[in-house]
């Protein structure tokens, strides 16, 4: 039976210090790797006879504006359907050069999910066959889910961050 510890061990054996930041929030193994390594790690997780993470459940990005040099995180949720275990894999990238290799060669499902991620966060998936906007209009020239685009009118004082628990 595959457990988080075994996965962690296999990954460290293979990639050493390059995979790091192991955590288990709410039981799901989470780790990160340098962004140049993303395909290597995904391929290893896919091909390894023991790991068999062959189902891409979800792919999305997160913006951390205060995280200088690694503002954007691309998050992969993978599922091993045989042993029924999930994991979360992250790569961080500089927002000024948000180039991350595409996973669409490995997972057909990544195609649209990467387009969506590009559409909202501007992550440039290198090698993607058709990287263009998917949900927003083609003419849009910004990436709306980035944190610098506030939802509310900033001149309003009755809806400041304090109202939302972030004083």
């Amino acid at each position, binding site marked *: 039976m595959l457990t988080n510890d075994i996965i962690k061990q296999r990954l460290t054996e293979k990639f050493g210090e390059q995979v790091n930041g192991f955590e288990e929030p*709410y039981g*799901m193994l989470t780790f990160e790797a340098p962004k140049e390594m993303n395909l290597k790690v995904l391929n290893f997780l896919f091909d390894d006879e023991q790991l068999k993470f*062959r189902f891409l*459940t*979800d792919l999305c990005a997160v913006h951390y504006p205060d995280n200088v040099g690694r503002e954007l995180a691309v998050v992969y949720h993978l599922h091993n359907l045989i042993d*029924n275990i999930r994991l*979360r894999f992250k790569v961080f990238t500089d927002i000024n050069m948000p180039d991350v290799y595409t996973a669409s060669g490995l997972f057909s*499902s990544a195609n649209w999910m990467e387009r969506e991620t590009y559409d909202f966060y501007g992550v440039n998936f290198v090698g993607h066959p058709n990287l263009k906007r998917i949900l927003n209009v083609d003419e849009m020239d910004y990436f709306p889910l980035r944190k610098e685009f506030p939802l*509310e009118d900033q001149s309003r004082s009755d809806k400041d961050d304090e109202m939302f628990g972030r004083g």
Partner: protein
Amino acid sequence: MTEHEHIRLPEGSIEKTTNTLNLGPTHPATHGVFQNILELDGERIVSAEQTVGYIHRAFEKLAERRPLYQITPLTDRLNYCSSPINNMGWHITCEKLLGITTPKRVDYLRIIIMELARISDHLICNSIVGVDTGAYTGFLYVMQYRELIYEIYEEVCGSRLTTNIGRIGGFERNFNNIAFQKLEKFLVEYPKVLKEFENLFMRNRIFMERTQKTGGISADRALNYGFTGPNLRAAGVDYDVRVHNPYCSYEDFDFVVPVGTTGDNYDRWLVRSQEMWQSLSILEQAYQKVQEFKGADAEVYHADAPEYYLPEKEDVYTKMEALIYHFKIIMGETKIPSGEIYFSVEGANGELGFYLISDGGRTPYRLHFRRPCFIYYQAFEELSKGSMLSDAIVTMSSLNLIAGEMDA
């Protein structure tokens, strides 16, 4: 006739052997706002390019400025054919984040609502496949039985389509007797209708010829395309979130996961049909389990989580403690732990996931919906390539694409 009077065709037009057809965004044969630019060779599809996003409403952005309980109405509008499943999925995600455990009775009541939603969703999808193959009657006939389901929702939460049903921690009120009576009525009447509905289609020659061997996909490709739910099971993979990662006490129930073999339109139809029977069986078991609660236990309809569950209005007016909690919840004074969580439920058309990152603020730092039909719709080109236009229409409806969910 002089040479002048001949019709002059544009240069190169005679060599082109395929036609471009713009199907959609609003087309009577596609149920929802989908655009497909099809390249046709006669009636055969050479290539298809889908455009989505016509009803994109930026739910993920909106959610970043809403307290947890105000996000429930957004989830209604994802797959609006089975809103209660989305609502429950969201509530359970929040409960996991907040560390709330719900009593068994709440779980069973939730299962009743979720399985009703699954039936109504599959019923719509299967009868729409009927419409697209030329059998309108079935669709009109089963509407009155979906109505029975909607009436049950109405008794519980007051609304029908966009339900906003339940709260974090349980339900807004206990099920009343009318709700249970309506459920009993449904359990008696519906099986006969479902049988009748199946008889109309299942061995119908015309229906079989229209749906068999069209829009098929292999298990391998389906997995690679991120298929989940009935569409994946029709291809022969028995992945069901209710069984693999049970939530809401699904492990207490005895049911079968139907699977198909070819993954074509007919198998998808059959899998949905069988799932309705399974849902009926789960409903019966759940109703029986709910009836077993006696005395004070039979009045439980929410978890004991005063910090997160809104107290009853009557208590707010008469009890100090309830007033304080009401105030704290509404003003966002209750503590939300920081952390990240991925939780998924078996939605009616696949694995509906919620990826929630909380930074301890009152609203999510980031919320991402894993919308099953957004992910598997990209396989449409592969499914329809080489098939007839009329088959592609059936494929589209048998995939159970819901524009609201796709565009989020």
